[in-house]
């Protein structure tokens, strides 16, 4: 039985990036709780921004990796996903 060629995207880069994003998000969250007043709120908000941005950046990274490996079908699927997400967010916010 064969299931095709093994994907060779450099996942170790993504593992390292995700590790540091987790450290940054958790660090900002701890600081946001520890710091008083407006500064604390701003830092806590930054932690939320990191958490929101990371899955979308991960999809962008995947699209770039699939592009480099010539997996055009999934480059297209990834782009369609981002278009649906962006369009859906816009529609939901406007409505």
């Amino acid at each position, binding site marked *: 039985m064969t*299931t*095709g060629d093994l994907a060779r995207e450099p996942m170790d880069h993504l593992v390292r990036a995700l590790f540091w994003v987790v450290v940054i998000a958790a660090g900002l969250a701890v600081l946001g709780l520890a710091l008083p007043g407006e500064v604390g709120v701003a830092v806590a908000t930054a932690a939320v921004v990191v958490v*929101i941005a990371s899955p979308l950046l991960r999809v962008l990274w995947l699209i770039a990796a699939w592009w480099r490996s010539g997996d055009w079908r999934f480059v297209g699927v990834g782009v369609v996903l981002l278009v*649906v997400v962006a369009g859906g967010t816009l529609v939901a916010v406007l409505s």
Partner: protein
Amino acid sequence: MATPLLVLAAGFCAAVGSVGGLGGALLLVPLLVATGTPATEAAPLGLVLVAAGSLAGGSRHLEDRSVNHRLGVTVEVAASAGAVVGALLSGVVSETVLVYALAAVALVAAAAGGSRKGIRNAPHPAFGPEHVGERVGMVGGAVARVGGVAPYRPRRLPLGLAAMSVAGLVSGISGVGGGFIKTPVMSEIMYVPVKVAAATSTFTVGITAAVGLLVFAGQGRIEAHSAAAVIIGSVVGGLAGARLQNRLRGPAVRKVIAGILVLVAILLVATA
């Protein structure tokens, strides 16, 4: 809820959610509402939990190559499209009807996963550890399991995508991540190995949650300090849950998921 308790509650829900790829919002939100947090504030915190837990569990799932990004991105297109329609319909559907429908879905998924015996994707002698991972140009792959490496190829893709759009619809209407539907759909309808389904679902619920949080942020509904407390708990719980999932066998993961789904159904009906 006091900040230390919120951290603990988020940690527990993220750990449980990460083991089964269920997100955890369906556990945290009823808990918060039951302890006096307004529902309008609890829903965004549930999505913060899902997004942060997904982020924390991500590297562990990548390291053991159990997450299938190609499958995840493919099913998420259907789920996101369903979520948009659901968000637009959210004011139309009765909240009580929705809660009972969610509870029924959770029980059916629990029964389907919990009652199943045997292994659908058996290890193949031609596959070794070097073959674990996803494949170029397709949504299939191979996963390490007890006794060897098992190749898999998702079946009934059109039906799976249709079910994912329903999962997205439910997410959009109710404001939850939808992992409690996505994991059983991948595992029980598409015959994806449950560990791959759980890891891939953990990845996709992060995307769904991010989109929902963008909408909540636009509405000014995210309370930064509570969100920070949830992030701390979710990171710790998400890491612990992903580590635990890695150690459990597939049938054990299925039973954990079934148990959580029954708990979710009870919580839903209790808070309805």
